[in-house]
Structures are given as C-alpha cells and as structure tokens.
C-alpha cells in the first residue's frame, strides 16, 4: 500500500504517547497508509512553539500546552488521549503527610516546588482552594520536572508538584506519597490529541486515519493490559526513563483511556456543553488567571469531535479504530 509521510510530535516516555509506539510496533501506520515521522520534545511549550515553524502536523500533548496552542497557534484538539487527573499530584514526604492532611494551614510560608503554569499548577490551585490557603501564602518555586526531583530529593520544599512518570520516581526513591491529585481536587486534566488547524482543513482524511490508529491503540491497550505493560516498559526504556513494573501498573490503573465510543460521548454537545467542554473551561480559566494567555479561548473554538465522527461514519475506519 502507498504510504504518505506524516509529521507527528510527541514527548518521550509518557503514558499518553504509548499508542504511538504501539502502532509502530504493530505496523498499524502502514496499514493506514501513513509513514510516521516523529519529532520528540522534552516539554509542551517547545512542542507548541515548533508548530508555528511548521515542524509537525499532528501530535499528542498535555492539556495546558493544548490550550496554549489553541490560543496562539490555531492548534485543534480532536480527541482526548487520557485522563491524567490522578497522575498530576502534589506529593509530600511520607513522614510529613499526615500532619499536612490534618492541618493544611501548616503549609503557609513553606516552599512548594512546581512547574508553574502547567496542569500540575492547576491542580495546586484547586487543592489550595479546598484547603482555603491563598497562593501568596506559599513560596511557589518554579522548576522543571527533573529539577523538582533533584531538589526534592535533597530536602528542598515541603510539597512537589509532579506528573507521571515522575511521581513514581518520587514514590519509589524518595519516600514521597500523593497528597492531593487532580481527581481529588476536581481539577480534571485531560491529555490532548492535536492537529494544526490548517493541516486539518487540507487533509481531513489523513487526520482521521491518524486518529484511527491511536484509537486502535487505545482499544488494544484496554483489551491487553499485561502486554500493555511490556510495551510501556520498552517505550519508557527507549525514552531514558526507568521505572518499576509496579509503577507501570499504576499508570494503567490511574489513567483512564477512552475508546471511540467513549470519546464521542465525552465530546457530545447534544445537550449543551459536553463533559470535555467543562474540563477544558476550568483549565482555560486557570491559564488566563496566571497570565499564560491573555484571554482563554472558548472551548468550542478548538475542541472538535468532527474527526471522531468522521471515523464513526466510515465503516472501514471504525472497524480499524475499534481493533476489530
């Protein structure tokens, strides 16, 4: 079969990216006539910035960069890669966690290590709201995830804001435990499957085939949890991340993924704003508030289920996406 080159952006060693790797291992790209060309980014912001330079056409990213990309560079979100709310976590040291739970006010004046203006910062905001602590009462230290791990391991900071797989490193090597996650604090953090709007308009079919490949991966992962662990292991290793099998199992357990039907349901605007609309609205508000974007873009402007519907309407694609 004839294949066409597709520029795909990703980040290494993240659960939400596993379908990409899986599809490569299984040879699904070729089946859909795609010759994938991956470019890999250490974080969301450079990934989004590179879109402006036309480095990639489609990809998977976090929700904060997704919204940022929507606000600045016409990036569309066509599906949700997973729900990472439970793996965006404020972590505390085991010997301190009970005291903090009992009296969150004791955090006042303490240092919190966090990557600011990201999903985990959103989680921090909602957790603080629950504890009734104004953000200004904390010393919020901005570090990237790797730096947070280094710093937290040497005794810096009372809390560390991490996302997977860094939370497992913290759990296993630093005796840290989750204190407050996105799901605890009603800060729902989805992951975004994205495309440049211009590319979507020109190649709707290509984008549909791309999404179908990912959805097939999701379906396969749901059906084969044990093999999924092995795939993840290989994928994470290649990305330079070494975590235990327990951590991999935790990833699978804590991060819901959504097949074609579930996606359609989440995104359905049949009865007013969809569930996904509400998730993204909260995040957009947060990003506006911290100044990342001047005004949050309306969710309807970038979140679309058109591609999902296109797959659902095409029997061949649909069967492929459902791994049938």
């Amino acid at each position, binding site marked *: 079969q004839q294949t066409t080159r597709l520029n795909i952006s990703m*980040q*290494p060693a993240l659960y939400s990216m596993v379908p990409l790797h899986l599809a490569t291992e299984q040879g699904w790209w070729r089946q859909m006539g795609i010759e994938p060309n991956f*470019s*890999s*980014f*250490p974080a969301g*912001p*450079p990934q989004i*910035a*590179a879109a*402006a*330079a*036309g*480095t*990639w056409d489609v990809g998977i990213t976090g929700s904060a960069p997704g919204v940022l990309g929507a606000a600045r560079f016409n990036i569309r979100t066509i599906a949700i890669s997973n729900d990472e709310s439970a793996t965006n976590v404020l972590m505390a040291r085991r010997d301190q966690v009970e005291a903090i739970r009992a009296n969150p006010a004791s955090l006042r004046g303490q240092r919190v290590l966090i990557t600011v203006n990201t999903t985990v910062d959103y989680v921090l905001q909602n957790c603080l709201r629950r504890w009734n602590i104004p953000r200004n009462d904390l010393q919020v230290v901005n570090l990237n*995830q*790797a*730096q947070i*791990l*280094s710093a937290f*391991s*040497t005794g810096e900071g009372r809390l560390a804001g991490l996302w997977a797989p*860094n939370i497992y*490193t913290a759990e296993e*090597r630093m005796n840290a435990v989750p204190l407050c996650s996105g799901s605890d604090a009603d800060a729902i953090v989805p992951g975004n499957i994205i495309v440049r709007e211009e590319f979507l308009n020109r190649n709707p079919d290509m984008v549909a085939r791309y999404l179908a490949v990912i959805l097939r991966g999701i379906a396969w992962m749901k059906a084969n949890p044990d093999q999924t662990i092995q795939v993840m292991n290989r994928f994470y290793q*290649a*990305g*330079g*991340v*070494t975590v235990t099998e327990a951590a991999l199992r935790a990833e699978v357990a804590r991060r819901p993924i959504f097949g074609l039907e579930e996606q359609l349901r989440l995104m359905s605007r049949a009865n007013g704003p969809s569930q996904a609309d509400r998730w993204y609205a909260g995040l957009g508000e947060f990003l506006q508030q911290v100044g990342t974007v001047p005004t949050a873009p309306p969710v309807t402007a970038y979140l679309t289920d058109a591609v999902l519907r296109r797959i659902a309407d095409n029997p061949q694609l649909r069967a492929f996406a459902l791994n049938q």
Partner: protein
Amino acid sequence: MAKRNFLGPHGTVLGLGEFWLLTLAGFALFFGGWSLLAWSGWLPANLLPSPRAVWATLVRLWENPFAGHVYADHLLASLGRFLMGWAIAVAIGIPLGLLMGWYRLLDEIVTPLFDSIRFVAPLAWVPLAALWFGTGIGGPLLIIFVGSFAPCVISAYRGARLVEARLVEAAQTMGASGRQVIQHVLVPGAMPSIISGLRVSAGLGWQSLVGSELIVVGAGLGYLMVQGQGNLATDVVIAGMIGIGVVGFAIDVALRGVEAWFRKRWGQTA
C-alpha cells in the same frame, strides 16, 4: 653555582619530565579529592557518585543504549549539530567582521546592536528558535549560532582593524584595489585574531549545545543529561558532563594546532 630564576615564568623552562609529573599530580589531586569526598559519605552517592561509579556508568552507557541510543551516538549527534551551527556562524560572522573592519558605515550600524545583544544568553533564544525554525535542525542551529556568532564577528573585526595601516598603505601604493586589499592584506593579517576568535566561538557554541538540546529531543549529550536528571541518576549527569568536557577540550586542542601552524608559518611567535 646556584642558578636562580629572577624573572618568574619568563626565566623558567620546565623540563618535560617535570611538566608531565605536575600535570599528572594535578589530575591525581582532582580525582583524589573527588574520590575522597564521595567515599567519606559526606555527600550521598546520589549527589556525588565516586569517579569509579561514574566510570562504570560510562562503560555501561557505552555498551547499552540509554534514552534510545548508546553514548557514542549521543556524542556524535551533539557534535554534528554543533559543527553545522558553528560552520554557519563562521561563514557569516567572519566575512561580516572583515567588512566591518573595512567599511566604517557598516561598523557604525552593526556594533551598537552587537554590544547590547551579546549579554543575552543563547538559552534565552530557545523559545524563539523553536518558534522561528522549529526543531528539525534549524532551531538547535540558531542557538549554537547565537552562541558562537559574536566572537567570530568581533575577532575578524578586531583583526582587520589591527592590521598595520602601513601594510594597507603599502598595498595601495602598489596599486591594489579595495578587493585586493581585503583579500591579500586584511584576511591574512587578521588570521591570527580570527583563529583565536574561532577558538572562543567554538567553545561558546559547544556550550550552547545543551540549551539547544532542550528543544530537540532524541539524541545528544544534553538530552542524555536531562533524562539522567529525571531518573535522579547523578552518575549519568556527570557522564554527560565528562563527554561535553572532553569533546570541548578536543575541539580546542585541534584549533590550537591550526593556530600554531599559522603562527609558525608567518613567524608570529609568542
């Protein structure tokens, strides 16, 4: 008779034996101190692994892929990226500097711009580089370029300005045109300065590398280090630093060879 040296370093010539002895002693002191610190347990191993542990890590990385590639591949990826960015900086910077040395007007336009921009870190260009050139190869190149461009221009410029006016005049009195003056007088006259500028620029360009590898991921010593840090593997971080140090050193040594060759050929000893 007691022969004393009264002139400091100018009067001393170390024998080769003594030189190497001291050099080795220097290394021994450095690694000895490091080992001692690591061994004493004053700093835990995840903060400061011992030299032996780092060596073991290096050997492991050499044979087993980490972050997708074996060590040598990371190193080559970095080196290739560096060479390209640096080559562009040299190819644009040196002619620009020479022209600035010859044409006053260009000098007056470019110099102030330069004088302020040189304080801005190459790292600060990372987001703009991603924005303008993406990550394929253009983005990293821009950052290495930003790091190494200024010394190229400045050294060529200084070199051209410092070429003895007499030589320029001598050429003119023999009927040389502007182009001939640049080609036969300014370029070779500025060459020693250009080459020492190349050394500086290669050093700075190489240092910008880690910054550039913050945008493109896949392979490279900087990437290796970032991933190592993510695993709290200080040994991997130091292994990456050693690679950067050794390659940077090797680049400098190579350029010094070129420098010595020119000096010898033109008799500009010192």
